[in-house]
């Protein structure tokens, strides 16, 4: 419940402030969002599994975002940013799907 409140708070904050993303960081924002989503679903699954850990969640969250953005940054420098971000999104997407499947099993017992 507290996590949902945090999420809502963050969304409201973003909508109210509407901070300007620096142009240089703009291409990495979607990737960062997908990585953060992955970490969040992973955390939710761990929570439901009963093995949630604050530290692990925060570390995985931050490292996911940073690594995903870093991979895309390096790809951009090498001229394969599009392909690398596709790869990152595929892997993260698969992870999100399987985590969500586990969450679904927990919630609906199916």
């Amino acid at each position, binding site marked *: 419940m507290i996590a949902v409140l945090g999420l809502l708070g963050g969304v409201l904050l*973003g909508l109210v402030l509407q901070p300007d993303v620096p142009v240089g960081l703009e291409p990495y924002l979607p990737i960062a969002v997908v990585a953060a989503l992955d970490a969040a679903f992973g955390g939710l699954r761990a929570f439901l599994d009963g093995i*949630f850990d604050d530290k692990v969640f925060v570390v995985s969250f931050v490292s996911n975002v940073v690594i995903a953005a870093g991979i895309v940054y390096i790809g951009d420098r090498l001229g394969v940013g599009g392909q690398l971000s596709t790869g990152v999104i595929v892997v993260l997407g698969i992870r999100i799907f399987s985590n969500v499947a586990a969450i679904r099993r927990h919630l609906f017992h199916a």
Partner: protein
Amino acid sequence: MAEGGSGTPRGSAGPLPRHVTTPLLSLVTEQALEEDYRRAAERRADAGVRPGPSRRAGVPALAAVAVLGLLLAVAAVETSADRGAREQGRASLVAEARSRRDLLADQQTRLAELRDANLAESAALTDLAERQESVDDRLRRLRTITGYGAVRGPGIRVDVDEPPGGDPADDMTLLLDGLWNAGAEGIAVDGRRITALTRVASTGPAVSLDGRSLVPPYELDVVGDPDTLQARFAESSSGAAFTALADTLLFGFEITGVEEVELPAATAPSGLTARPLLAPDDDLPERSGS
């Protein structure tokens, strides 16, 4: 990895580790949950800590989730703003492309028109050039015949002294008449071209042409067929009369054939009152005598 999940050992070495033999996709799916959660849970179990309190999300987790929400909101706002700008850009591009296409069509129409006009103009130009050529031809012929253009050709040279007694103008007129009748195409007296407008008058004992007195003996250059000119001069009535006069009065009169005679052009009179009856395109009547 390409071996698939068979896990077949290779050679004498033992079975490969599981993370090597598992296909990538299966590995990704299996490890979807961070391994660290499990390890942390095991560590806690080893340390004998009850899992209860650690299941609660603390402030750092709350902050991370808030950051996620923030990222989501910012990304959504950004994307929608981008889309607005993109659509605007696209619309303006489409409008510009359309206007350019219209412009292109206009210009192509104009190009076709200009090409047609060009074609018509060049046809007209060819026509005009042809007409100019024929007019030039005609003008040259007219000048040759009327004496307003310099000519060159075979002919004769007549050296004649002033006949004693009589009217000098009458004698000169008689001589010129005889030459014209003999088929002379152009005559110059002492270097002055004779035209239809040339006034032959007497000033004292000599002839004057257009008011300019000449001094005998006179030198007549005549262009015409040298073979027939002399004979026809003798046959013509004026020529015969002049020859008889010369025979009687014994003044100097000599005709010699010349291979090439050059006659100067007479000065064309200016400010004519006469207007031509012939239309410009009418063909010049051929001179019957030549």
